[in-house]
């Protein structure tokens, strides 16, 4: 059985050889794992190396807490991966980038307008929440396709605020 896993823009190929033998990008691991009674905690022994991970699903991604770091992992079996590829819905660095409100708050400022060219890291919305002003930034280069909020607006968590499209796309 073969799987594809993605963390950020890194892709890994996983093959399950035998019950306790897994290959990650061709490297062999002897794997022993247990799900613990305490929620979603897993104990893994990889070639005797011990790791404890907390794993939860959120928005179709696996959130994996390991040694203080939170990894967001997407796992697909080979067939699903190929199908997604064919349909063009696999994770990709092009396409629309949707900027959502990460929490409820009030829009302090929207320094961009539709049609503006933005660079990765440019501030596109300033949101006040939890007694702080928070700058929401463009996740990549592109062109602002739509602004769906305005200064002074009250917004909910996950509300879409700004959509950024590819630079070469039609406005």
């Amino acid at each position, binding site marked *: 059985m073969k799987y594809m896993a993605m963390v950020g823009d890194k892709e890994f190929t996983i093959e399950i050889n035998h019950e306790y033998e897994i290959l990650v990008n061709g490297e062999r*691991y002897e794997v022993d794992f247990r*799900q613990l009674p305490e929620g979603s905690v897993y104990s893994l022994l990889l070639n005797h190396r011990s*790791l404890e991970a907390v*794993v939860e699903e959120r928005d179709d991604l696996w959130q*994996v*807490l*390991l040694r203080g770091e939170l990894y967001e*992992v997407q796992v697909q079996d080979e067939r699903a991966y190929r199908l997604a590829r064919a349909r063009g819905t696999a994770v990709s660095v092009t396409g629309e980038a949707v900027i959502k409100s990460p929490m409820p708050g009030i829009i302090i400022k929207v320094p961009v307008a539709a049609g503006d060219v933005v660079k990765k890291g440019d501030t596109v919305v300033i949101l006040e929440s*939890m007694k702080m002003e*928070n700058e929401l930034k463009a996740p990549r280069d592109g062109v602002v396709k739509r602004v769906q909020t305005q200064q002074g607006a009250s917004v909910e968590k996950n509300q879409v605020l700004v959509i950024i499209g590819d630079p070469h796309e039609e406005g």
Partner: protein
Amino acid sequence: MREDGLLTQKFDKLLIANRGEIAVRILRACHELGIRTVAVYSDADRNALHVRYADEAYHIGPAPARESYLVIEKILDVARRSGAEAVHPGYGFLAERAEFAQACVDAGLVFVGPPVHAIRVMGDKLMARQTVQAAGVPVVPGTEPGLNDEALVAAADQIGYPLLVKAAAGGGGKGMRPVYEPEALPGAIAAARREAEAAFGDGTVYLEKMIEGGRHIEIQLLADAEGNIIYLGERECSLQRRHQKLIEEAPSFVVDEELRRRMGEVAVAAARAVNYVNAGTIEFLLDKDKNFYFLEMNTRLQVEHPVTELVTGVDIVQEQLRIARGRRLRFQQEDIRMRGWAIECRINAEDPYNNYLPSTGQITMSRLPTGPGVRVDTGVFTGYEVTPHYDPMISKLICYGETRAEAILRMRRALEEYRIMGVKTNIPFHQHMMESHRFLSGQFDTKFVEERFSMNEREPADVMEAAILAALVAHRQGQQASQVVAPGERDTSNWKWYSRWERLRR
């Protein structure tokens, strides 16, 4: 009651006008002193730890603090109904509001804090500056209050550049503008006045020399009603972002015995200038040449008080309660000896990889680090909701070591042991910091986090592969569960694996 608004007397029941970790901290101290406790809670906090650990609890309104925790009359009403004889304000909320302290003493309640007069004087930056300056405390060179724009421009040349335009009222960096050259000054004054007017209803500003490479060093004080004041050494709080402290330690890497004594004595003089009583902190800016300047006084318990507790062995909150009960200090200055090193990391619900954006949601798991030299102060638990109503601090992780290096190494261990899920946290920020050479060598100032620190992604390949395998295991488990419903799509090799696995899990 004293003329300056101080009431100290024995009490057996205390109301905690706060929530979260500091309410729990105060509850524990009361419990340990045999004082009965009354908690107050908003709609958002019925399940909170401070409600569950208190002896009594009263509802005081909706989630927004301005409709609950900040409503003085509601707090006093609960005090009346519950028969509380004293009030501890914690930090934040009503802790530094002189009118609240006044209302408490007017109602015959012991306010666990300083005299009303001391809160008032120290709460006004210019008045505080004048008062301590008169007592011989060095302040950052700057102008008098209330000058008009022309006078400010004239004064600026004498002070020298770079300098800061600062609002007389308020704090948190609002109404503050750095100015690096004379041409920029008029515009900065106008902007600061506007911001201060909008934020505090008071456009008064003044100028202050900008101390470059300055470190934030503060002195913890304890003072009783008889006028005995002692200092419990310093804390280093230079690691800040947007004026929010992130990491504090005691002692400071750059303060030696002699400097500690000088800063301590100056801090005591500053407190004496307002007849200070109870716990308080004098914040100083320390420049590269070890000159120090009074910044402000916090007339309350501080978030970072635990690091001082660990190195001095003194329980500051218990001392607050004893002082408020009218007891004389149990310590003289020479009784206070610092031992070892303590570091506090504030664990916040925010994403260090995405501009420290706050993260809200339900905490699906909270397993605290424990064992030798580790203390966690928290109000958060499995199932807790991080909401935008209150500040995003999840907990304070405090580690003690015999030396600074040991405290840092222990902090790394504790950060790795911490299991918290459901929101993003700044644990990776702290992990990066605990590995940063600048931090390890003690070479940092108040601008370090914002200007010279970055979260370069640490990606040890093998840990990432472990993360992927953990996700794969969870994924397959979910898949198998759904295949029970859709048997037509079963994959026997999976089943074999799964049943072996199930067998082993027994």
